[in-house]
Each structure stands twice: as C-alpha cells, then as structure tokens.
C-alpha cells in the first residue's frame, strides 16, 4: 500500500511539473516533440541524481575495482540469454555464436560468470537489447522521452527494455523479477560510477546539458545498433565551400 502511495505521489508530482503552464517550444527538435516536458523531467532527474544516484554510485566505488569487475562479469553473464535471443533475431550469426560460447565458458570454467575467461580466449563481450532489434527491423525511436531516475527512454527503447526483462529466463526463477530488477539497478549504479568523470566534464563544458545528453544518447544508440560500424552513406553531406 505504501509503495502504491509513493507511485501515485510521484505521478502527481510529474504531472504538476509537466503542467507548469509554460507554452510548448515553438520549434522543437522533431525527435523530441515534448521537449519542454522532457526538460522538466530532466531537471527532476538531476535532483534525484544529485541527492540519490550519484552518492550511491560514489559509495559503490568504495568497493575494490576487482570486486566491482566480478559483479559486472556476473551480471553480463546472466544477461547473455537476452543478448543471444536478440543476436538471433537480428540475424547476427557470428555474434550469436560468440554470445553462446561466452555463456558456456563463463558459466562453467568462469564459475557461474564471476570470472571472464571467454574474453581472454578471444570471445569479446557485446550486448544487444530488444530496442536495438526493433531498430534493425526499421522501428523508429520516436518520440524521445526522459524518465527521472532512469534517463533517456524513447518509447522503442523503453518498450525493448521491458521485453528484455520478460525474455530473461532468470525472471521466472523464484523471486526472479526482483532479482532481474536488482541486477538492472546494480548495473545502472556501476555504469553511473564509471561515467561520473565524463558526465561532470560534459555538464561543465556544454552550453545546453539536456541537448548534449540527448545527442549522446541518440549517437550512442545508433552506434550500438550498427555494432560500431560506420555507414558512410549515412554521414551528413557537407554541401558548402572549403
């Protein structure tokens, strides 16, 4: 009941913040039609980050880096079935082979994934999610949205994340859903800790932090969707004189 009350309260706060009375942006980014609302959500997120997520990430950094790497390895391994399914759905046979080999090696001689012998044997880690699979099938990310406490969540990628949770076999063992969500939270804290220096630098040097984060998110997703490859035909045309 208490959790329900918090959710209702949080929803009310978001709605009130969103209905601040300010007119919509006259000429918003076409990818971000709800930009004014999203900027408010971003401001809420920055407060949550300042008082909860960043302190948590800083506390997490107290753990020795070797132990953090072990935790990371474990969760990477747990997620392998999700990556494997998405590799297959994207028709990436070689990458699906790599994922399967990594899972078998790390689950056995890697003691359930806490060690990563697969990387030493040349099978490098990669991650695929259902949002990327949808992108491969031509589903556009629109519209952009920003969820406080989570980050950029265009509908395609947010939906993809929920489907990934459903796809993960761990979700269905015992207290699986709690386990899966806990794993996501730990990974998010780990990622936040790793990105701290970069985020501080970007915030310090960007003239519009919200727009920078949006750009970084889209570019990073595009890069992941294309597995880091550059499509020369997709590069912007430089139609001006030298």
């Amino acid at each position, binding site marked *: 009941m208490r959790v329900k009350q918090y959710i209702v309260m949080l929803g009310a706060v978001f709605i009130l913040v969103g209905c601040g009375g300010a007119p919509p*942006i*006259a*000429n*918003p*980014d076409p990818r971000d039609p709800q930009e004014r609302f999203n900027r408010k959500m971003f401001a809420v997120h920055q407060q949550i980050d300042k008082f909860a997520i960043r302190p948590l990430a800083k506390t997490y950094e107290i753990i020795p880096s070797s132990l953090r790497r072990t935790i990371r390895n474990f969760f990477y391994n747990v997620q392998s079935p999700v990556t494997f399914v998405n590799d297959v759905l994207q028709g990436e046979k070689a990458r699906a082979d790599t994922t399967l080999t990594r899972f078998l090696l790390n689950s056995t001689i890697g003691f359930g994934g806490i060690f990563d012998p697969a990387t030493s044997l040349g099978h490098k880690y990669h991650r695929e999610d259902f949002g990327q699979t949808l992108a491969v099938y031509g589903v556009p990310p629109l519209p952009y949205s920003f969820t406080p406490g989570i980050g950029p969540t265009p509908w395609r990628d947010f939906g993809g994340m929920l489907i990934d949770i459903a796809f993960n076999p761990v979700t269905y063992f015992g207290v699986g859903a709690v386990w899966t969500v806990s794993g996501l939270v730990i990974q998010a804290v780990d990622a936040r800790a790793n990105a701290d220096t970069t985020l501080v*630098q970007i915030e*310090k*040097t*960007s*003239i*519009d932090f*919200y*727009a*920078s984060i*949006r*750009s*970084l998110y889209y*570019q*990073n997703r*595009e*890069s*992941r969707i294309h597995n*880091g490859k*550059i499509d*020369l*035909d997709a*590069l*912007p045309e*430089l139609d*001006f004189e*030298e």
Partner: protein
Amino acid sequence: MKYIFALLLCFSLASLQMTQTAHADDGLHARAFVDMLAKQIISILTTKTTATAREAAFADLLDTHANMRRIARFTLGATVRTISDKDFMRFQNLFRQLVVKVYANRLTDYRDETLEILGVQQKGRNFIVASQIIFATGRPPINVDWWVIRKKNGRYSLFDLRVLGIWLAQEQRETFTSVLRNNGSDIEVLLQHLQKQISD
C-alpha cells in the same frame, strides 16, 4: 565496331585500375595524416605541462590541420545561411576558443597512451580512419574514428572525431541547434552562451 568496343573496354578497365590505385594511395595518405596528428597531440600532452601552454599548442594544431571554418559552419546547421558574415566570424572565433579550451583539457588523461590505426574507409574526398587508443594501464582500448577530408589542393584536414560512437562536431551541432531553436534562432543568444562558457 568490335575494335571500338574492345578499345573502350580497355580504356574503362585502365581508368578503373588508375582510380583504384589513386584511392588506395589516398587511404595511405589519410592514414599517414592521422598518424602524424596523433603523434603531435601526444607530444603536446607530454611536453606542455601548463593548461595555457597546452591550449596555445592545440590552437596552433587546429589552425594548421583542421578546417575550423568548415567545422564551425557545420555546427551551426541551417542557421549559417541566415546570419551575416560578421556574426559568423564572431561565432567562428568563439567556437574555436571553446574547442581549444574543452578538448585541450579533456585529452590530458591520454598522455601515456599509444594509437593503433586499424583501417580506412573512403567516400569521395571523405575518409574515415579507424583507430584504437591503447592504454598503458591495461584498461580496455577505446575506439576513435577520424573523419578526414582531402581538400581540392590535395592536402588533408581533420573534420570530426568519433569517440566511443559519438561524433564530437555532430554533438556540438545538436547542442547549438537546440539553443537556437529554444531562442527564436537568435544568434546573439548562442554567442552569449559561448562567451559565458569560455569565461567560466
């Protein structure tokens, strides 16, 4: 008729061969350009110990090997066609100062590293040189792609850098465009933002 056809075929094959050779040479030149640039950057990071000296050396490097006018025009998006030459010069000057300040200091973490070039892709006069920064500490390497343009005079210039999947000029363009969109395309507001960022 057959002779003419055979002759044309020979010419086509010969010119195709020449084009491929020229492209391969271009790839080598672009690769050598990036190699030279990386060595100069590492030299600046190791020999210039103060922020002021580093920034001055980076400014020289950019003026020599990057076409700042072209990059500045790109980052302004469509707005570049609507502003006066004078405003554009003011923007270019502030943009150059921002780039020097931001990246001369961001790159200080990379002074003991080496750069390995992995390959080159080409489209017309555009080259993407793929490379990896190898860390002495054993940290996983970082992928860096260099967008290099062969100018009409045959010289090469740096247009953009892609670090971990992020094109830096593209990111600047989206940020500047956002400021302009949110302020009625008023270039003065963007110039004020840049000025403030440089002064901070």
